[in-house]
């Protein structure tokens, strides 16, 4: 049954793709070779589309493949399959963390991890900057945004909408 197969294959992707985002890409290429759900070219298009649509790439791809193969129920089956492994695992960890929050070892481990996460955040910012800031004009805009975000703490959604409008007006 196609729904079951979609669920099962994306369940495996969800279980083995550790690290999120682009880590799912090799798994998806694998799928495109095994099944006629989507072609390699469609996957490449999808990666491009995913960059300009909201939501995580893995979820977008599961929905896309599921829909192409078996309509909306297929999209639901594939996405549910993708999300289920982490849903179960995170729920277990959330329970454990609650219980052991004050354990000294857990606290030490977290104290080591936090600065590393800060480095990951900075790196993620750098990766996006490489795609976003392509000219001097872009850089000026970036500085203006950075300053206004720093001094007028409006919602991030507000800044994104402003940026979309600015992008259209100035043909970025």
């Amino acid at each position, binding site marked *: 049954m196609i729904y079951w197969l979609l669920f099962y294959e994306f369940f495996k992707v969800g279980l083995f793709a550790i690290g999120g985002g682009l880590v799912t890409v090799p798994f998806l290429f694998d799928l495109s070779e095994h099944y006629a759900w989507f072609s390699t070219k469609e996957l490449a298009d999808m990666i491009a589309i995913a960059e300009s649509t909201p939501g995580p790439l893995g979820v977008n791809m599961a929905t896309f493949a599921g829909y192409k193969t078996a309509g909306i129920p297929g999209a639901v089956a594939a996405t549910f399959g993708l999300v289920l492994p982490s849903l179960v695992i995170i729920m277990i960890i959330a329970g454990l963390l609650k219980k052991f929050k004050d354990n000294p070892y857990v606290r030490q481990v*977290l104290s080591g991890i936090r600065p590393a996460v800060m480095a990951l955040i900075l*790196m*993620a910012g750098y990766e996006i900057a490489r795609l976003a800031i392509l000219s001097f004009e872009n850089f000026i805009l970036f500085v203006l945004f950075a300053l206004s975000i720093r001094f007028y703490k409006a919602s991030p959604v507000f800044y994104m909408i402003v940026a979309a409008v600015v992008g259209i007006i100035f043909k970025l």
Partner: protein
Amino acid sequence: MLQLFLSFFKIGLFTFGGGYAMLPLLQDEIVRRRRWATDEELMDYYSIGQCTPGIIAVNVATFIGTRHYGKAGGCLATLAIVLPSMIIITLIAAVLARYMHNEYLTHAFAGIRIAVTALILNTFFDMWKKGVKGYFGYTVFALAAVILFFFNLSAVLIVIAAALTGLLPGIARRKKTK
């Protein structure tokens, strides 16, 4: 519970470019507005989401939902964060495929990417004092940043190594007292 759903639906709708692009939105909605987590807890969720299977954005949503409303909350937050992309992608796959190469959309997203870069940088500075404390913090941060930048090592390995490093000061202290 409804608020949980609405908050994560909004975050899912405005996350462009994966897990870390979601961070400014999470900080604004979850830490500042709803007070469902502190900055420190958000960092912990990210590190756990990074090292466990699945998509970081989804993992963080599950985590926050579970912590506040139990298992039902975890499921609800997860549903809420994937629902916007499911709807949008289904629409694209069904009718909008050509529309995606629209010139206006391209310009709009070029603008959004610049704002997202600035937003992430802002969140980074917001969290700096809470995330990087003392010489130990500076050292771990600097090492992780250098390794990430120059050696392109997997983020999973970085987090695991940092977790072990976190135990070192404790071990050193115990040896001294012996």
